[in-house]
């Protein structure tokens, strides 16, 4: 894999909690327009990896986006730089409408913002917001509250929020969980939209069919380490991967 420098580059990522090494020497890249899958058995460290890349947990190693190092940047700065993530548990702002949920991400941040707002409030209209809602097919729900929506709809709103941030790369943590068939279709459409716009995607999910069909490349984690990377077909046949999943499925049976 060549690092063109326009996407996400992760090198030597490591996270330890107490004495436990949750993530160990993980490296990969996500190029613009690529959908890369991140899979592994339960507890492999997938969400921790996303936490580390997006700055939500302390880690070692390097994180670069479009050639710029984000290793020491706080979480919000990484998001502003274009490295956006979603959460496994949908985390929307219940006090705000759907549109406002997106607006907080889409509106630019200026240091004089509050001073201007005190006199002439910026109301949150932004082209990116409507655009993102349209992309997930929820434009007509723009003024609804998150509490009025179904679980699946809330998930889509969270995805729309990621899109409204003008990301370069999005990290999606289990976006398909709990979606019905229509909503899963919307998700698929969204993923294609992202790819078409040249946005890189790191996709973590347990829905194997989704991962294998959408992802260009797949990175497989087990016990915090990368045990395999490659095209979906290669991964399907990789004995290390099979063993890792069988091992866990044996434990589960």
């Amino acid at each position, binding site marked *: 894999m060549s690092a063109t420098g326009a996407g996400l580059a992760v090198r030597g990522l490591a996270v330890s909690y107490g004495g436990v090494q949750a993530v160990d020497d993980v490296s990969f890249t996500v190029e613009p327009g690529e959908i890369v899958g991140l899979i592994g058995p339960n507890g492999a460290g997938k969400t921790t990896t996303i936490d580390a890349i997006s700055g939500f947990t302390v880690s070692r190693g390097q994180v670069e986006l479009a050639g710029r190092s984000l290793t020491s940047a706080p979480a*919000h700065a990484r998001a502003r730089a274009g490295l956006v993530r979603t959460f496994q548990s949908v985390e929307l702002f*219940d006090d705000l409408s759907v549109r406002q949920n997106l607006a907080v991400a889409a509106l630019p941040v200026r240091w004089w913002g509050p001073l201007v707002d005190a*006199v002439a409030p910026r109301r949150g209209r932004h082209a990116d917001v409507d655009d993102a809602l349209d992309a997930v097919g929820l434009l007509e729900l723009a003024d609804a509250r998150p509490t009025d929506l179904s679980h699946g709809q809330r998930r889509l709103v969270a995805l729309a929020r990621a899109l409204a941030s003008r990301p370069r790369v999005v990290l999606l943590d289990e976006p398909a969980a709990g979606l019905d068939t229509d909503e899963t279709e919307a998700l698929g459409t969204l993923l294609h939209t992202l790819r078409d716009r040249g946005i890189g995607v790191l996709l973590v999910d347990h829905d194997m069919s989704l991962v294998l069909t959408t992802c260009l490349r797949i990175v497989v984690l087990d016990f915090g380490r990368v045990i395999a990377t490659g095209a979906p077909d290669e991964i399907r046949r990789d004995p290390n991967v099979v063993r890792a999943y069988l091992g866990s499925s044996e434990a589960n049976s």
Partner: protein
Amino acid sequence: MGGGAAIALLALGLVLSFKASGVVNLAHGALGMYVAYVFFELRNFETDPAGKPGGDLVLPILGLPARVHLVDRPTVFTALLVTFVVAAALGAGVYGLVFRPLRNAPPLARVVASLGLFLYLSAVAKLRFVGETGQGAAAIQPEFPLPSGAVRIGDAVVPTSNFVIAVVALASTVALVCVYRFTRFGLATRAAAENEKGALLTGLSPDRLGYLNWILATTLAGMAVILIATDTHGIDPTTTSLAVVPALGAALLGGLSSFGATAAAGLAIGMSQSTLTTFQSNNQSWLPDWLSGGALAGALPVVVILIAISLQGSTLPTRATLLDRRLPRAPEPKHPVLACCAVATVAAVGLLTLDAQWRLAIIVSTIATVIALSTVVVTGFVGQISLAQNAFAGLAAFTTAKLATTYDIAFPIAPILGIAAAVVVGVVTGIPAVRVRGLTLAVATIGIAVAVENLVFNSPALLGISHIPRPELFGIDLGLRDVGDKNFRPAFGLFALALVTASAIIVANLRRSATGMRWLAVRSNERAAAAAGINVASMKASAFATSAFLAGVGGVLLAYELSSLSTDNFSIIAALASVALVYLGGIASIGGALFAGILATGGVLTKLNGGAAGGASQYQFAVSGLVLIIVAIFSPDGITGAASSAMRRVVDKVRSR
């Protein structure tokens, strides 16, 4: 040393009730105070057979008979037994009726509930034990069989009873550590605190564990206060209840989890206060003039605690932190300029047409409204529980007064500088807020208020400032005072009204804007906010700065209203009362601030109720305490919230026909 052991004892009980129910009980000291009073009252008899027989059990429930005579001249043992039963009943009652229903409520609801409990208990204690006249101060002498006499240690003479307290504190710590580490009960409690379902597996119901732990905590509190009151030879409903503040510091330093660390922290706080008392009394000539004698003793421990708990916290809540549910509604003002101007017009008409006393009432309410607005911004919109608002107001007031009198700085420069000083301190207050949240933050802001009070309000440099020059702008006399019925001049009132209306419009604008959305996002979910690119730390700082600005406006107005400023105008009690009123009205709505302003003592509602003649009786305090608890449990949106929900229901019903 005695002081430190006492703090440690109280703090142990605090940690206990936290471990059991996740509640930092601000009323812990008040509970201990009431239990101790019960004991002392039982033993309040004269040995002469013709004298007082004592042995009365005093009940804390208004409406029920105040006292029940149990037995004449009870022995210490009997009295302790009865007291223990009372403590158990109180602890179980408080848990069952107040804190168990609030299990999953946001921290603010729990703070307000414990506040209501504090108010209720201290008011009831005053009613039952002290009576209406204040001279009951010496009525009940705290007495417990403790050794008298003293021991010489080096230069100091230490009463023997202090050693007893230290031993009790140590023994309690050891006992608690053992119980919580080695017994099934202790382990089950820890498990239940982390995972209710898991606790069921141990065979003990989480509810029962809660009750047992609270009974234990209340008993500990009672024992602590009995010992402390005997040792310091004094007990008082309010003062003793406030001893919970240093205990809170110790509990936080112990991470609200480790008994050992908490006890050690309590001892350390006590020792540092004694040491600093030594330090400041030796007439250190290098201490600047403006630093009063006791200031360091009061302020330094607080600063240390703040630094320590800030280091303990983390910039973003971890995944394990439970998300808040049911935050108070933060309605979006639809037509802010119109609404604010409408209210202002009504007030202005009042100022121009009514008599002097009404004008004063309107001015008082106006000032209280802007201070309440500061709470709406920082606690309502951004969810940062802050009790330092009145300290900010006081800072602005004293700075303005000092600049205007000693340094002859003219109006409006002096008040602008005063507000600026408040904003600076407000931003500094925002610093611990970056790393701590919820009740811990509330305690941190209490600490800041205490520090400001010690360092600023009690400074000799501010001694007896009075006669601030009349404010004048563009030749218009904005002063308050005038002769006869022209007193409380409309000019001052209108000026205050203009400032406060402008502030309200600014707050409404902020609420409707991107800044307001971001504030609410931070309140709602800090992690998601960061993920959405919001700089949580700077949002919090901006919230504190804005609220300090608003409180500063109120403080400056107070400076020009009152001829003599005093710390009591800006005390923590005043802050608690103000926050409580705003919560009652709707803490995240501007209407809530207006509500608090109207209800403020000496304001419009007081005038409607008969004006200067009436006064807040102890019954009123007790009732407000109860109301707070009820509102915290049942209606976190406050009264304006409940009213607007009711309105919406009516409107929906009408529409659906």
